[in-house]
């Protein structure tokens, strides 16, 4: 923290502190009324690195939050966020790793019907949203995660989802039918 914060950093700091929700570069530019926000944000984040509060980017939006290692200080005064059921956790994971995904596709992976309440809870938490319809017979609604999901789980981006690269490489995000086809195609090679 050697360099003296300039006017732009001061303004960004004030705006992000006062904001009631994470802010995008465009929103910040409007509020501050000056250019150069995109370049200044990483500088401001660096200024806070290692401090009790940190500036983080989640899904293109920036916000301040307390450092994770200080959770023990703050948690005692707060209630735990509502505990998600197992069905809720799995459904959320399937939507996050496969998005956009229809209800039928979620059910195919879980091998069981999802109760309406499960999706409702995730929608109400602001973690998933309807993301249009799949252009197949019946035009089912498809779901995707929200910027609020990324913020809540501390993900800068969907690529930050734990292990997503490995799962993709292992083909575990592909549907069973596709995986079967590929396995059958590989077979003659193996026989040869």
């Amino acid at each position: 923290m050697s360099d003296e914060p300039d006017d732009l950093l001061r303004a960004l700091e004030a705006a992000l502190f006062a904001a009631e929700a994470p802010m995008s570069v465009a929103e910040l530019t409007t509020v501050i009324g000056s250019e150069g926000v995109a370049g200044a944000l990483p500088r401001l984040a660096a200024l806070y690195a290692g401090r009790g509060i940190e500036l983080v980017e989640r899904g293109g939006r920036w916000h301040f939050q307390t450092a994770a290692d200080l959770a023990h200080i703050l948690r005692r005064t707060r209630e735990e966020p509502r505990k998600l059921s197992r069905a809720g956790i799995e459904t959320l994971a399937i939507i996050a790793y496969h998005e956009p995904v229809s209800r039928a596709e979620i059910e195919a992976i879980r091998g069981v019907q999802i109760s309406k309440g499960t999706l409702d809870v995730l929608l109400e938490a602001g973690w998933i949203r309807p993301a249009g319809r799949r252009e197949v017979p019946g035009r089912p609604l498809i779901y995707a995660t929200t910027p609020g999901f990324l913020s809540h789980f501390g993900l800068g981006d969907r690529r930050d989802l734990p292990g997503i690269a490995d799962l993709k490489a292992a083909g575990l995000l592909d549907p069973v039918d596709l995986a079967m086809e590929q396995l059958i195609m590989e077979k003659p090679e193996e026989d040869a």
Partner: protein
Amino acid sequence: MAGDSEPFELPYAESASAEVLTLDLDGWEGPLDLLLTLARAQKVDLREISILQLTEQYLAFIDNARALKLELAADYLVMAAWLAYLKSCLLLPKDPEVEPSPEELALRLQLRLQRLNAMREAGARLMARDRIGRDVFERGAPEGLKLVRKAAWEASLFDLIAAYGAVRARAEVPVHLVQRRPVMTLDQAIDRVSRMVGAALDWADLESFLPHGIDGDYRRSALASSFVAALELAKQGRVALQQEQPFAPLMIRGTA
């Protein structure tokens, strides 16, 4: 080795009453979830799992549940029936006519278990992240950013002057000028009819006394005035009037 694994045993350990076991059954998210729990109990990589062994475990579980007279959801029974079929196919000598082959069905089940397992683990890792409101916290009392809209009123000097002109014009006392309308006065008509009757000897239609080439309001005025003039002249004994029936032409002749 897997038969005495924990998830498999748990329901029995607590099965003091049938109700408890039912509740524990509710703990599984469907037959695939139960299968995955059993598969994980084999403690081998899911890619190495023995589907035959898994099938036997599942069927044993269902049998036990039945023995305890538990109500099993239909989809658990459907899965049991399907697995019993799969097991028999896997044990019987290969029939190349059967499509898809039992190996393919087993592989398909294995792939499904792998996918469900991947998502279950992903969910657990997701929940373990530093979450807002549990591990990290946002500003407790943000001031908020407000946008105040302010009207910038627009009006030009011309608008202002024109508006004042309109106000003043409205306030002026209005002066009404009545336009002169084209009429033939009674005097003119008496003069005209008496002159024309003096020259004619026979009956003539009153309308033939009107000036030629007139129409509209002036013609109606001339006709009305000429009619009154004819009555006036008749009263003075200077003309005689005759009409054969109502609305027939009014005939006029000089008495001299």
